[in-house]
């Protein structure tokens, strides 16, 4: 029996390290409109708005910049690709996959944002099942 004896551990009490587990802000705070609840809600809203505005800016930069470019550099507007006017290719075909891609990206991000927020305020543990049961 040569099992090593557990070494002595030194425990220092620091009151700012104390975790009061049951008071994690969550559904209750949203319901009762507490300070925490409001803060949580507002940050969630801001994240959603940020995502929307980012995608909107991207869409506008890609599409609405074309007339400005064409006005500043007329050669771009008059260019032809395989005999077809560039304007036809851009306005007739090329913009649509871009718009779709931005929409798809937004949907994915928004869904993830909601899932993360749900997990934050309503973690599985709070529903009565221990996390690793």
């Amino acid at each position, binding site marked *: 029996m040569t099992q090593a004896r557990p070494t002595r551990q030194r425990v220092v009490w620091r009151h700012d390290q104390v975790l009061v587990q049951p008071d994690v802000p969550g*559904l209750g705070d*949203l*319901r009762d*409109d507490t300070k925490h609840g*409001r803060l949580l*809600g*507002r940050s*969630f*809203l801001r994240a*959603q*708005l940020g995502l*929307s505005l980012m*995608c*909107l800016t991207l*869409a*506008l930069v890609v*599409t*609405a910049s*074309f*007339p*400005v470019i*064409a*006005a500043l550099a007329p050669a771009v*507007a*008059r260019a*032809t690709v395989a*005999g*077809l*006017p560039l*304007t*036809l290719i*851009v*306005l*007739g*075909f090329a*913009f*649509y*996959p871009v*718009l*779709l891609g*931005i*929409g*798809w990206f*937004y*949907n994915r991000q*928004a*869904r993830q944002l*909601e899932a993360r*927020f*749900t997990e934050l*305020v*309503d973690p599985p543990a709070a529903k009565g099942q221990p996390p690793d049961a």
Partner: protein
Amino acid sequence: MPDASVGAIAFVTLLTIMVGARGIRVARTPDDFLVAARQVPPALNAAAISGEYLSAASFLGIAGLVVAQGLGALWYSVGYTAGYLVLLLLVAAPLRRFGAYTIPDFAAGRLRSPRLGRTATVLVLVIGLFYLLPQMKGAGITLQWVLGTPYWVGVATLGVVVSCNIAMGGMKGITFVQCFQYWLKLCAIGIPALVLLFAAGHDPWRNLAPDQAPVFTSATTVSLPQATDFTLTRPAQVTVTGLLGQRQYRDLRVRLCACRYQAGPGTTIGFGKGAPVPVSLAMAPASTQPWDSPFLTAGTNGSHPVAATYGVIIATFFGAIGLPHILVRFYTNPDGEAARRTTLIVVALLSTFYLFPAVLAVLARLHAPQLYLSSDSDDIVLALPSVLLPGLPGELLAALVAAGAFAAFLSTSSGLLVSVAGALSHDFMNGGVTSFRWCAIAAGVVATTAALVIERFSLALLVGWAFAIAASSFCPLMVLGIWWHRLTKVGAAAGIVVGGGSCLAAIVSTMLGAASTGWGAVLLGQPALWTVPLAFTVMIVISLLTQRTLPGNVGRVMLRMHLPEALSRQAYRTPLGLK
């Protein structure tokens, strides 16, 4: 010759009535009538939304405008699609979660002011009417083209069919009708476009070359069914039979100069290969911009092309959010996540559809330059199949196009009438099923009457104006209402009245011919350029000045529009919105 087309139109109309009538048995309560009991799966719903959205302007207007004015008119199709992306990014899910039926409901519920709701209702009626007019015009010219009936016959037919159908079935029927009509429209524009693309064969893209007016690629004889004014850009040797420039010819070779001519009805003119294409008054480009320039100058007579283009971009990108007949469809999604999925599918469906007007327009430019002698640019899509493909195949394709066009008028005007009648009966009457029915009929009568006076405006232009009004009134209301908790009812009311009012005033003065050149033409003809920023500014400034009227629980109402449903149900017991 028009037998096939008549049959096709009658078939589409009957089918619409029958599918709609099936809905009567299912529709029992006002809830069913208005939003189809909120149980429509995303794919079906997306097709229904697209079916409702793709109107006469998309089906006939854009391609015609591209042929006449140049590729810049494709901004309309890009904008109509991008409008749905903007809707997805800014309002789709929150709006569904809020759970009101209509824009006025949203305004009244979000800002706790029934009076604001009624102000919004007035605007719903204005936008609805503006959007109904081009559908009626489309029906008028389609029947005129197919049957040779006077313009008013088509207008009245559409008015009667749609009003009666809605008064009977409500929206449950309409969901299936609209869905069916998206696929019908896609086939009706896609099949002719692809068939004609192969039938036309390969030709070096001669008429697409920049800096060149179109020429006839083969010897062509054009017969003019009605008296036509046209202009030639270069002198040409032609063979004329009939009345031309006050002289009667009989199979005579004539040299025409580069100037303007008047041809009598029934005149035929034979052009040789390589001859310049004469352009009728209705098809004359608005500006001296080359055909392939990306600027859109229709409606502003060619002044300040870049600014005019941005006017259309702003109106179409931000107008879709404010269309009353489209938003009502979002409540038929089961939840916010489904609303988002639905909207993305809509963007995909619209992108697919809008490939084809461009194809048809390019085909017309390449292979059917005689269409530049048409009396109305909106006829081009209807005329193209029989020009490119003579005989039975061309006739069948023309019938398909006519049926698709009619489907476009039927579905869009049905959706519009549902929202107009819903708004009327809900906000100004007792809101029951009976009053909804009477309102549908009344609104149909008003729109039919008004449509008789707007024949000379292009479809795409008219629809663009409806978008401009929506973008400068309801778009700021929805966007700020969903994202900005300091919006007050006074600010919202001021914004929609000032924005919507000034936009409407600008459009009406353009219709009356107030300014035809310079900045006046641009600012009045494409008012979204300044009325959209104006509406946002007024709404924000007035709201900041009236912060004292803000109710206490705004933060919670706002948050609940954005929380996923499962969370919202657990955190709050009472449902959101008016319901």
